[in-house]
């Protein structure tokens, strides 16, 4: 009780630095960290994207002016980074929903001696591998598109 009173407003002393912990994470914790960072980054990008694309309503001249600003290799590189973050955040999010609802990992049963695990313990790790594979394919498609724009491929 005394501890509760003492730390009433200090429970989360680390704040966002708590995401990084003591850097002795397992793979899932690293995925959690990247999921958070990409999430915040994508929200900032979304707000910027809304502001940039809304220039269309001011007419063709405004759109062309905006296009001339955003069509450069540095912006394209940033866009590729955003697409990478989007692919990761999306696929990892799907993985989290599947795990939260207990899908694909089997059903828990009453423990009866001799105890045997009923949950498929390898499935979460397989999901991560599958997520990485699908993500790589999506990212390569995006990269191919940008290589065409940059003139590396024809």
């Amino acid at each position, binding site marked *: 009780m005394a501890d509760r009173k003492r730390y009433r407003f200090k429970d989360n002393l680390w704040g966002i630095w708590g995401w990084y912990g003591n850097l002795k994470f397992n793979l899932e914790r690293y995925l959690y960290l990247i999921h958070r960072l990409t999430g915040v980054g994508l929200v900032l990008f979304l707000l910027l994207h809304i502001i940039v694309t809304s220039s269309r309503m*001011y007419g063709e001249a405004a*759109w062309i002016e905006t296009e001339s600003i955003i069509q450069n290799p540095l912006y394209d590189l940033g866009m590729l980074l955003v697409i990478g973050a989007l692919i990761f955040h999306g696929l990892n999010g799907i993985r989290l929903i599947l795990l939260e609802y207990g899908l694909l990992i089997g059903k828990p049963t009453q423990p009866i001696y001799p105890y045997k695990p009923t949950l498929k313990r390898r499935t979460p790790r397989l999901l991560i591998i599958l997520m990485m594979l699908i993500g790589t394919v999506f990212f390569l498609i995006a990269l191919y598109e940008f290589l065409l724009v940059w003139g590396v491929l024809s």
Partner: protein
Amino acid sequence: MKESTIRLIQYFTALLIFILIGFHLGIFTQFLGPGYSAGLDYLSVLERMKNAFYDTIYLILLFSLLTHGFIGIRNIMFEIFLTSSIRRIITLALIIVYIFFLLYGALPIFYGVEECITCV
């Protein structure tokens, strides 16, 4: 609104975004659409804006993205700020910014679909 309902909205919008973002990005690839540069062309953008199907997709996508994003930011803020009065201020501030961007993002979908001057 209950926190569990907010969490369900978060999951539902996530699934919507996953499908619709694929469609949105697909337009800018050679496989499903005109490609990145051609997709950004004013005539191409106008054509999409005049199409009710694309308008509907963009509206749902805008709503889903903003809802999902702002719930996520709220979750993070709630982890950092624990007092209920600050949490109320955060929620109110986020709702105001959310409504502003929802309206500002929806405007180009309904407004300004005029003719293209330089297009043939």
